[in-house]
């Protein structure tokens, strides 16, 4: 079973040289720490920055320079700043190659829910609906089961949707899965030490698995 950093490490392997990438809040943010040497990527922060750098050194933080998680950050040589309309313009126009975001639930037809728990959590969708509606390539980083042990990979989402039929790839603490165009989760890789039976047990939606599913290579 992977921890959060393990999930981030595995996702980082999906990033290709030359990509412009939007990282969501939570596990996706950790992916930036594991981008392999020699792979040149530009990180977009949807509050209006391309070329997001690391956190500033102590004392160098600038209140005018934050990321979409409101954290103080830095720019890099080649960075560009723009307004919020242009930021979502480049997302809508599919100039961003890859979006990585978290989810509370994903359904077997690729629907995602990650913004609202009725009566409990009313934080809002931020940029998530724009990202999932427009991105050509989305990877979801999520926990396979919730704290009560219930599957979050479902036949249909129970929470209010963020987007419909938009998710194609999921990385969890247990597995890497594709969402098939005709519906259903296809098991591609197992986390180290996790069996197909355990993944099947943790997946409420339809799961397709070959007899021999390879174990992830993450280092």
């Amino acid at each position: 079973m992977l921890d959060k950093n393990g999930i981030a490490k595995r996702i980082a392997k999906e990033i290709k040289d030359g990509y412009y990438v939007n990282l969501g809040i939570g596990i996706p943010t950790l992916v930036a720490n594991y981008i392999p040497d020699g792979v040149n990527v530009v990180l977009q922060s949807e509050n209006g920055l391309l070329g997001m750098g690391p956190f500033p050194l102590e004392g160098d933080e600038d209140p005018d320079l934050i990321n979409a998680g409101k954290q103080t950050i830095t720019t890099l040589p080649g960075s560009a700043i723009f307004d919020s309309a242009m930021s979502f313009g480049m997302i809508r126009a599919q100039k961003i190659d890859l979006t990585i975001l978290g989810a509370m639930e994903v359904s077997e037809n690729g629907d995602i829910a990650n913004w609202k728990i009725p009566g409990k959590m009313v934080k809002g969708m931020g940029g998530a609906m724009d990202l999932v509606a427009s991105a050509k390539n989305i990877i979801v980083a999520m926990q396979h089961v919730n704290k009560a042990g219930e599957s979050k990979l479902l036949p249909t989402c129970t929470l209010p949707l963020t987007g419909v039929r938009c998710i194609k790839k999921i990385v969890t603490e247990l597995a890497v899965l594709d969402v098939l165009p005709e519906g259903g989760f296809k098991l591609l890789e197992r986390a180290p030490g996790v069996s197909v039976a355990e993944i099947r047990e943790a997946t409420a939606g339809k799961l397709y698995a070959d007899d021999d599913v390879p174990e992830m290579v993450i280092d």
Partner: protein
Amino acid sequence: MINKVVANADEAIADIMDGKTLMLGGFGLCGIPENCIAALVKKGTRNLTCISNNAGVDDFGIGLMLKQHQVKKMISSYVGENAEFERQLLSGELEVELIPQGTLATRCLAAGYGMPAIFTPAGVGTEVAEGKEVRNFDGKDYLMEYAFDADFAIVKAWKGDTTGNLIFRSTSRNFNPIMAMAGKITIAEVEELVEVGELDPDHIHTPGVYVHRIFQGKDYEKRIEQRTVRKRD
């Protein structure tokens, strides 16, 4: 040149009456019009509809107006850092319309560009789409979203000149230039107000035609919401 300068925030917001619709620039606490928010809190204007990406935190930004129950309705994309907001929302004291961030931005843009509506795929198939016209272009569904209609836009810029030209700094730009374009009356507070001719025309982000009032702001706190740093060796 036309002179747009007013003395201070109190004068800039003096004619904002109860029940008006305001746009407020900023992302989180970054680039928010601190002086005008303080003046609105002091004036006690009520029943306001506020269009702003976020709602501040409990004791800063729009959170200060929420605490005084000055806001009737918030139109935002993310309000997660404000416990008082969440309390007022769940108790029904506050009306809220949550809309996707790109939709929020582009509805500002449409207003500033004189376009009545835009089409966006954000929210198709979700509760955001309820009651909205859906149009299909090249096999993909889009929602029709209307340009905002705001009585006042209140923005914060880094530098501005007396005729209202604005330059923003770093990611405090965010919603400020597009809201500046979208208000019927636009008020800009700036960290540094300069004479005409001192800003390079090639470097202007918001042309003064969009700005009706400008003033030299003061005492900026520029609070940081999430201070994240690397240790020095």
